[in-house]
Every structure is written in structure tokens, then in C-alpha cells.
């Protein structure tokens, strides 16, 4: 299949093609219908340029996250799903803790799945919107790497009341 010439690939295939995605973090494998997996632009480009073998290795994404990604792709590959169904299904997929969401957004970015990137980014944004930065640091487990002087300098940058305009 990987070496099939372009014209053959586009001809209507009698049997359903599948791809195997393998998480390189824990070696978990997922057999997925090709049209489901092709929602990932990254995978589509690999298949289109004949770079995809029987098993497509997916680096830096765990099996747990890959399962979520595939669930999303399956939902959105279903032509009979209504807009409402998809919205509900998406909400279910992103109803996760912040660490899972961060892994998921990185996976969506790497695999280039626009819709998943959107819903996940929106969910993360909603969970930190209008929270004080001290709380945001805690949620994300981010270390404050500012000295008090540096922090004051950033604050001064925002002193728009005195900012001049050319």
C-alpha cells in the first residue's frame, strides 16, 4: 500500500484500508481506518508522500492521549453525526484535567488536527481566563522565574497611561 502509485490510491478501494498508529512512548498500537487517521494533516502528508509504512510511529504522544485523538477523529469522520452530537462528543473528550489537556493540545498540534486543536485550546483558555497569575502558575506547575526587579520592569512596560505614541 505504501508504494501504491498515486492513480491506484485514488481509485475506489473495495476493502477498507487501515493504518496502525504506534505510540513511541509506551509502544501501544492502534489500528484505525485510513479515512479516520487522515484527518491528521501530518499523517495525511506522510501517506501522500509514501513515507508511511505499515506501522506509523507517533513520537512524544502516549497511548492514553493517542486514544483520545483517535476518538475525536472517529467522531468527526462519521458523516451521519449532527453538529450537536459532535459538540457533545467534543465536550466529553476535553472534560479532562489540565495536564491531560496540555498533552492533548501538543498532540493535536503535532498531528495537525485543526478542530481538536481549537476545542482543546479553548478548554485550556476557559480554565485559566481571568485567574490571577499566582493561581495560573499553580495550575500549570510553572515556576516563577522573575526577580522582583524584572517583574517590576514588565509591569512598567504596561504603564500605558504614560506611554508615548509617535
Amino acid at each position, binding site marked *: 500500500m505504501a508504494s501504491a502509485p498515486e492513480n491506484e490510491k485514488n481509485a475506489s478501494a473495495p476493502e477498507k484500508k487501515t493504518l496502525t498508529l504506534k505510540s513511541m512512548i509506551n509502544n501501544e498500537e492502534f489500528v484505525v481506518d485510513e479515512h479516520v487517521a487522515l484527518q491528521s494533516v501530518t499523517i495525511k502528508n506522510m501517506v501522500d508522500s509514501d513515507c508511511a509504512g505499515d506501522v506509523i510511529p507517533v513520537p512524544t504522544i502516549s497511548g492514553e492521549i493517542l486514544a483520545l485523538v483517535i476518538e475525536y477523529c472517529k467522531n468527526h469522520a462519521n458523516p451521519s453525526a449532527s453538529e450537536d452530537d459532535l459538540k457533545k462528543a467534543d465536550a466529553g473528550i476535553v472534560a479532562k484535567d489540565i495536564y491531560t489537556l496540555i498533552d492533548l493540545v501538543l498532540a493535536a498540534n503535532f498531528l495537525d488536527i485543526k478542530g481538536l486543536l481549537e476545542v482543546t485550546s479553548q478548554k485550556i483558555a476557559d480554565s485559566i481566563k481571568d485567574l490571577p497569575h499566582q493561581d495560573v502558575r499553580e495550575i500549570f506547575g510553572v515556576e516563577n522565574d522573575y526577580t522582583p526587579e524584572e517583574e517590576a520592569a*514588565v509591569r512598567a512596560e504596561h504603564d500605558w497611561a504614560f506611554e508615548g505614541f509617535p
Partner: protein
Amino acid sequence: MDCLVNIFGRLGLESLVLDVPFVCKSWYRAALNPECWRHLDFSKLKLHDSLSYDDFTLRLMSTHQIVGNFPITPFIKSVVKRSGRSATYIALPEYCTEEALLYIADECPALRYLVLPSNFGPGRKFNIQNHISKWTNLQFLRLQTCFQMQEVLAQISIHCKNFVGLANSRVNIGKAEASAIVNFLPNIKALGLRFTCMKKENLVTILQGCKQLERFDARNCIGFDEGDEEILKLASHIRSFKLKGSMLFD
């Protein structure tokens, strides 16, 4: 890192200005990306505390130790500057100045969605029509009590080829206004004319003239009845047509 920028762009002004840059240095750097600043909602900002400040204005005032009136114009300009000419959505507050509007006209060529405050009242005579030519990508315009609608629409028809949606409320939609909508925006897809005074004949003019309408909000209007069958028939092709609360007489 693109993922952070994508998330920051969804946070809104309050977080972007007051929180994100202070989390850590890498967040600060990511927030300098103009793409974080495409969606700019200034609509809740207040000028002085007799109008009772909202939380955002209060936090800005106390963080930056501002006394007296809130410097709305410099604030808008400094934020718009961060967008690096990439802002696509801007909503302006009451007491926005012509100076800020002029700056936005010059610095936001990518603008697609603009929400303007009422230009009715002392010191608030915006000349929106003079700026439309700068916003060639404009698709939606939400006005509040704008009385120069014909002039604005004439400019839109010349300069904004992708324009699809207009909202204007609490105004009189007379014969001239209805004809202006039909003549200048014959292909408009969305119209919001809530709380307007609009005689039935003028509503009919719009319904007959704008055949591409997909959404039309004519709720709470004075001049026609919400159950008028002729109107409902003329509007039967419109996917979402609302006229609840509209009545013939006040």
C-alpha cells in the same frame, strides 16, 4: 511556541494584560506575539467611577496606581499597538474617543468585526463613515444608535467587498434607511434591527430587497405586529427570523 499563542488569543484582554505576562518569562515572550492580540474587547471599560467601574477597569487602576479618570484612549492605543496590525475583532466602550477610532482605522487593516458604542450624546459625534475606507476586510459592523446609517452604508458598499452583517438598534428605520440597506447591501446575510422604530412597509422593503438574508433579528420593534402573516410569508426563506415582542403601536 504556537500552542501557547493559540491559547492566549482566547483569553481576553484582562488576562492578557494583567496576568499572562507575569506567570513566567516564557509566557511573557509568547504574549508579545501579535497573534495573541487579535480579538480585542474594550466594551466594558469605564471612564470614571461615577459610572461604577467593572472589575477589569478597577484592577487596571489599582495595578497601575491611576487616580482620576481612566485613560481610555492611551490604553486602547497601547493594546492595539500590540496587535501589530493583525486585530480582527474590536469592540469599543462608551466614551471611546474619535482619537482612538482614528488610530484603529490606521492600525487595523485586518479588521473583520467592529462593535461601536452609541454615538448619540454630547461629545460623541463619531464620524465612522470617514474611516470605513481603511477597513477593506470588514465583514460585520455592530452600531448602537447610529444616526448616519446611510452615509456609513454607502461607504461600506464601496470599500468592504466581504461585508455580510449589520446590526443597529434603537434607531428609526424610515423609508430612507430601509432603501439604503437594500441599495447598498443587497447581498447582506445577517441583519440585527432590534428595538427600532420601523413601519411595516419599510420592513417589507428590506425583506423584498435583501434576498440573501439568513439571519434577521427584528425583535421588540415598533411599527408592525409579531404575528403579521404577510411579513412571515415574505421572510419564510430566512433561516433564523425573529420578531418576538414587536408590535404595531407603542
